[in-house]
């Protein structure tokens, strides 16, 4: 069983009955706990991708969920899905952190990948991942933000549009343009 899923289920069981609903009419009384359980790994991955600093990502992710918890009564379902709402808060916190630091830190260590490929595939996988990381370095901040929201955050195009305040077609077009650029950069790097 996926360790993260196992952890989330235990958390959910422990706190689901103690958390008040986000808002009166959101998903028939969905609790903050269920939103946390569903979105925490993705929010953390998104923030870590944006900040490229594990310690800062932990601080910002915790800060984002705490802010969301304090403001949960102010959530308006009409303004978007709960995922878009929590990612918007996390994004603001991450951008504030970026502004404070005025620099981009690199990851201190490569993350340990629990879903690592088999040893015979490992070298090829690492090589391709390094190529992609190098290509990511050629993207602008906004483009990296888009890629992070899509692949680290796992948001749909509609949710990305809600987070960035764009139309869905505009968000899709930008995302496609960014992936095309990334793909081209990967070819050049390879």
């Amino acid at each position: 069983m996926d360790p993260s899923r196992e952890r989330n289920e235990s958390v959910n069981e422990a706190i689901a009955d103690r958390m008040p609903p986000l808002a009166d009419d959101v998903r028939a009384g969905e609790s903050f706990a269920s939103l946390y359980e569903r979105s925490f790994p993705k929010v953390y991955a998104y923030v870590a991708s944006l900040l490229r600093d594990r310690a800062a990502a932990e601080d910002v992710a915790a800060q984002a969920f705490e802010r969301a918890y304090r403001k949960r009564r102010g959530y308006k379902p009409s303004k978007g899905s709960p995922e878009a709402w929590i990612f918007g808060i996390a994004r603001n916190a991450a951008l504030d952190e970026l502004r404070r630091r005025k620099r981009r830190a690199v990851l201190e260590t490569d993350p340990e990948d629990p879903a690592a490929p088999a040893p015979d595939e490992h070298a090829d996988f690492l090589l391709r991942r390094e190529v992609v990381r190098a290509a990511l370095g050629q993207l602008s901040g906004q483009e990296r933000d888009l890629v992070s929201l899509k692949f680290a955050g796992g948001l749909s195009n509609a949710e990305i549009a809600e987070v960035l305040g764009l139309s869905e077609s505009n968000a899709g077009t930008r995302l496609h343009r960014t992936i095309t650029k990334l793909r081209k950069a990967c070819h050049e790097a390879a």
Partner: protein
Amino acid sequence: MKPLDPVIDNDLKAIDSALRDGRVTATDQDARELQELALLLESDAERPDPAFAGELDRRVQHGFPRERKRRVRLPRLRVTRLGAASGVAVAAVLAGLVVVSLDSGDDETTSALRTGGGGAESAPRALQAPDGAAGKSIGIVPPEPLRGGGNFVPGNRERHIERSASLTLAAPGDELDRVADRIAVVTDRYGGFVLSSQVTSGEDGASGGTFELRIPASRLQPALRDLAALGDVRSRSQSGEDVTREVVTAADRLQAARAERKSLLRRLENATTDTEAEALRRRLDLNAMEIRGLRSQLRDLGLRTNYAAVSLSLVEDGESEGSVGGGSGTLDDAVDDALDSLVGSLGIVLRVLGIAVPLGLLATVAWASARVLRRRRREAALS
């Protein structure tokens, strides 16, 4: 919503398909590359440290308990002081508004009350005050006339002031005779007299009367107060004129004339010829005429300064049910008062709104600008 380009739409669908299935499913080479890239990017996503995840789980479980922070009193004090200062400033503005409102809402009353200070500058306003404010300024000490005019006599401490006042009273038609009688009684009570009077009453034509009163100047104020209480005061004015120069001049000339008379009498006693005696007698006659004229002038001045001239007009009040004493209590008065209060209150509300609305608009604009600026600064962090 603007539809996506078909090529873009197909590429995005291929990416979503790979992310959903967790494997490359496309047969087309381009689509396969996109799917592989998407899976690589997804697999490269950072995963939270278990220790951190456990700690955050605990905090979520306990509802993000607030950490106790050491209280720093100074900032709180500053905030308190700032708040108090702001409150005082707002209260001062509101108080100012109320004062301005009251000032503008009842100019006649206020101007009459201000004359109570007796200052030289405020005095003319009191003298000109039309009176809806019956009896409110009747106790005013009449102003000293300005001393920059021709009657200024330096060094003379005893001033001779000629005072006059005019008063218009209104009374119901059936009360006119009674009020006219009371005017004479009040005048007599204060040692004055009615110099002339004319009262007209009856159903034909306008009813009313005019009175020329002389009241001892030292008792003018209480007399005016009592006279004003006899009806509704429609208008009132007072004036004073310094005639000290005339008095002093006349007195000096009288003294000189008397001295001349003595001299002429001595010279007449010593006259040696009839012609000289005759000439001195003619001069004595002229001197006597001058002395009489000066005495008369002094008496007249004395009368004018010792007695104030009061011109009182009595007019008929159209509302026969109104009380003579200028009191209130009728339904119409109550309605008028209520309307006046309402207008005054609306005036205050409008003034407050006149300040609050622009301030609110400014605050809204500032808030929106700050929001846009903050958003731009955040976005700039990605640049």
